[in-house]
């Protein structure tokens, strides 16, 4: 609107998308307007259910044939998407506007070579191009997005590429017709931090070099920060804030944007700072958590204030960093490794693959050890070995001075109550046919508790403690949001009063604001019950804020282990430094600076 000279390449005016349902109409997008100038960059940010993906599908006209009703105006490269014929719409897709999707593992056809798929993208719109020409162009596009030896790889199938490489292929497919706009819907959500950084750098580079406009849709403000000029913040289908990315991020006007920004975990915030903040808010009984659906947030504060008698076996609330006094070792891991046999050699022979090799550490009572690493780094294998869900191939694991590496399952069972786990995906880790109360109470029953009445009482108390209502006992998991389900999972882990809880990516499936609430809950519970945590995650910022010490893993090995602040402020290994440089930051200028540094490093490395 401010720039009047060039005609915008994308213009959305008062867009409304409505889905008729049995309970009446659901308005997924309500009165959204924005413009993107040629070569411009726009970020659309919002949590799940904000309508951002519905918007991006509407831009492509991909709602055709569904029940969605669309009103308002969408113009892409001068063409009215809402009123265009199907044929006009097809002519636009891929030629004027290309789309990159969230999950690169699913968005390429598994049965055609990537060459075929790229060639097809060109020849739909340029039927006069010969196959050879198209193929040459495909090789060029693959080269452009950084696929090594593109002339050979063009004949490969998608399954022969890693996730990051597949996303590059999808981007290359988008480039085939030189579109005016590239629409990327959560293009890096399924990828590791370093890969995410590379893909974002690539998108930025393409935008600059080819003069293509970029619309970047994400749930993560930090992902958008360094790559766009303008940002739209959406909530419940409404754009609550829209403006220059610097202004929105440094001086957000709308309370929702402020809350969202406050909830984003930042790498530069240390555990001590975060705890200090949480504690002061807790003492003040500050209002919080209203975002997650209202119920229960008051109960958290209430239960804590009432000073519920500390359960047996729980240490007195730890004060300060637990590292200082009486460093009692809870878990000792020495030289642990795990080998898997990988089939598929010639004549069906298998080869060895070490998912974890020679890992050792001590875990002290009351502390939190963070384990960070990218996918395939062995962090989940390691945590499952500590749980004895997997048997280590070599090395020893001692729990409270007792070697549990190879003891019989029968003798392991009483120890199981002391070590509990909270899993990543709260949508699949709870049995949908078991009520919440039963899911939590089962563990007690398994461990020999017979009195149904006392199980009930304890489950209700615990539900209240994790911020849910005792009355939720008889509900089924589907009645709860992701954050609430993760609270249920935490309650299930807590019911046996464990000494150690292993959290395997406990918040990575959650929206930022919900993430923040769950992290707070975990930290409060640690204070109240004297818990020890192993916190496994790929998100560097989250790990820093919850961990006293951090282990950085790569390819099954610990590359760096030590005090969390020391590692974050003064990383010793190259890999840790690369990880930190790749982590998205909220400040657009710092983001650009880090990007420049990454590009320089890559140039040197190449």
């Amino acid at each position: 609107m401010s720039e009047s000279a060039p005609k915008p390449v994308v213009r959305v005016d008062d867009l409304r998308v409505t889905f008729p349902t049995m309970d009446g109409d659901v308005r997924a997008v309500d009165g959204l307007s924005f413009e993107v100038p040629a070569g411009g960059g726009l970020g659309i940010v919002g949590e799940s259910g904000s309508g951002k993906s519905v918007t991006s599908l509407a831009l492509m006209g991909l709602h055709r044939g569904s029940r969605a009703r669309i009103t308002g105006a969408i113009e892409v490269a001068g063409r009215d998407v809402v009123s265009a014929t199907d044929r006009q719409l097809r002519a636009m897709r891929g030629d004027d506007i290309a789309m990159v999707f969230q999950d690169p593992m699913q968005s390429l056809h598994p049965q055609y070579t990537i060459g075929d798929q790229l060639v097809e993208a060109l020849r739909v719109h340029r039927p006069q191009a010969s196959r050879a020409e198209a193929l040459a162009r495909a090789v060029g596009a693959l080269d452009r997005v950084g696929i090594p030896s593109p002339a050979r790889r063009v004949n490969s199938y998608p399954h022969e590429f890693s996730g990051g490489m597949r996303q590059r292929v999808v981007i290359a497919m988008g480039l085939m017709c030189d579109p005016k706009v590239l629409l990327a819907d959560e293009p890096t959500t399924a990828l590791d931090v370093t890969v995410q950084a590379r893909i974002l750098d690539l998108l930025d580079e393409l935008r600059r070099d080819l003069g293509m406009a970029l619309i970047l849709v994400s749930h993560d403000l930090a992902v958008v920060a360094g790559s766009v000029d303008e940002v739209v913040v959406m909530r419940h289908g409404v754009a609550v804030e829209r403006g220059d990315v610097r202004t929105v991020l440094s001086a957000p006007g709308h309370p929702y944007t402020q809350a969202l920004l406050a909830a984003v975990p930042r790498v530069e915030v240390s555990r001590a700072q975060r705890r200090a903040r949480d504690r002061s808010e807790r003492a003040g009984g500050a209002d919080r958590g209203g975002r997650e659906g209202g119920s229960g947030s008051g109960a958290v504060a209430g239960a804590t204030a009432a000073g519920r008698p500390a359960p047996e076996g729980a240490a007195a609330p730890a004060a300060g960093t637990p590292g200082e006094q009486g460093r009692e070792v809870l878990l000792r891991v020495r030289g642990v490794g795990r080998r898997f046999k990988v089939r598929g050699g010639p004549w069906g022979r298998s080869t060895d693959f070490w998912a974890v090799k020679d890992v050792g550490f001590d875990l002290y009572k009351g502390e939190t050890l963070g384990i960070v690493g990218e996918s395939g780094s062995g962090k989940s294998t390691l945590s499952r070995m500590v749980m004895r869900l997997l048997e280590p191939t070599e090395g020893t694991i001692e729990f409270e001075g007792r070697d549990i590496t190879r003891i019989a399952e029968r003798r392991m069972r009483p120890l199981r109550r002391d070590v509990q786990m909270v899993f990543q995906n709260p949508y699949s880790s709870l049995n949908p046919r078991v009520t919440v109360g039963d899911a939590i109470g089962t563990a007690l029953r398994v461990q020999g508790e017979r009195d149904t009445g006392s199980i009930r009482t304890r489950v209700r108390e615990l539900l209240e403690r994790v911020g849910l209502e005792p009355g939720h006992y008889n509900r089924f998991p589907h009645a709860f949001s992701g954050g609430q389900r993760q609270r249920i999972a935490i309650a299930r882990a807590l019911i046996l009063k464990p000494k150690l809880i292993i959290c395997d990516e406990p918040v990575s499936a959650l929206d930022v604001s919900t993430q923040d609430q769950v992290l707070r809950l975990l930290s409060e519970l640690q204070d109240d019950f004297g818990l020890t945590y192993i916190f496994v995650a790929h998100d560097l910022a989250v790990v820093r804020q919850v961990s006293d010490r951090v282990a950085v893993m790569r390819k099954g090995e610990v590359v760096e282990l030590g005090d969390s602040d020391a590692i974050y402020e003064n990383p010793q290994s190259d890999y840790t430094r690369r990880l930190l440089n790749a982590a998205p930051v909220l400040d657009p200028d710092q983001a650009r600076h880090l990007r420049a540094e990454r590009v320089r490093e890559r140039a040197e490395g190449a």
Partner: protein
Amino acid sequence: MPTYILRRLGAGLLLLAVVTMVTFAIFYVVPKWAGRTTEQLATMYVGRAPTPEAIQATIDRLGLDKPVIVQFGEFVRGIFFGAQYRFGRDTIDCAAPCFGYSFQTYQEVFPEIVSRLPVTFSLALGAGIIWLVGGIAVGVVSAVWKGSVFDRVAMAIALAGVSLPIFFTGLLVLAFPVHAWGWFLTPGYVPLTRDPAGWAAGLFLPWITLAFLHAAMYARQTRAGMLEVLGEDYIRTARAKGLSERKVVLKHALRPTLTPIVTIFGLDLGLVLGGAVLTEQVFSLNGIGRYAVNAITQSDLPVILGVTLFGAFFIVLCNLVVDLLYPLIDPRVRVR
């Protein structure tokens, strides 16, 4: 790749060996466990008047008094090297793939099966093509126009097709188009080499009847698979490229849908090649299935054994072909 082929081949051969052993055991060992004496067993195999001499001759000829292992060994040797049976002064020379002789007709089993193969082959292949193409076509259209009148009617008919047995649909077909309305001549088999038109005309109704049952199943499978694939992310990618709906469906969605269909087709075709029992019986086609039915009613053990092994052979063969085709259909199966 050669490893893959060799492994599949080995597995197929092993399977055949096991089937041979189990079938042999069912016919020659289980009756003994059930308390039959060698004499009672031989009585069944004599064929005509069971005089004590005839029974004794049968025992000698078939080696029924020998240990089971030896009997099995002779049976297997017969398959590879042939066997001889003595009838008093006469001998029957049973050539290389020898599965014994019929106790009823004193004909060797293998040549009998081979002579009936063209009938069963013609029936199975013709019907197979019809049900494969028809079922897939109906399934695709139903999936694309989900909820339409076509979809509902087709799926209702498909449900009927799955539920109605062949002896019902077959008799219906014979009763109305053939006898009542006289649209078709009574179905029958004419060798393809002698009269191609007559071959097709004579087999048309059996084909339709046999195909109807399977086509119904394939239509339902295709529809379900297609609907699932149409919800995949890569279909959205294909649409986002600007491809026409026709290309999206026929190129991008159909191929993944066909992958599991090819697997069941291999199984079904193998099954029918081993004898489309009901269809052959209803339409009086003299194929392997009918041969088997007659043998069963007359307890003609060598014939039953031979037909069973033949059926197993076709199922194993068709599966092997499917296994070998699979890497061509789905590149993810290809072994590096």
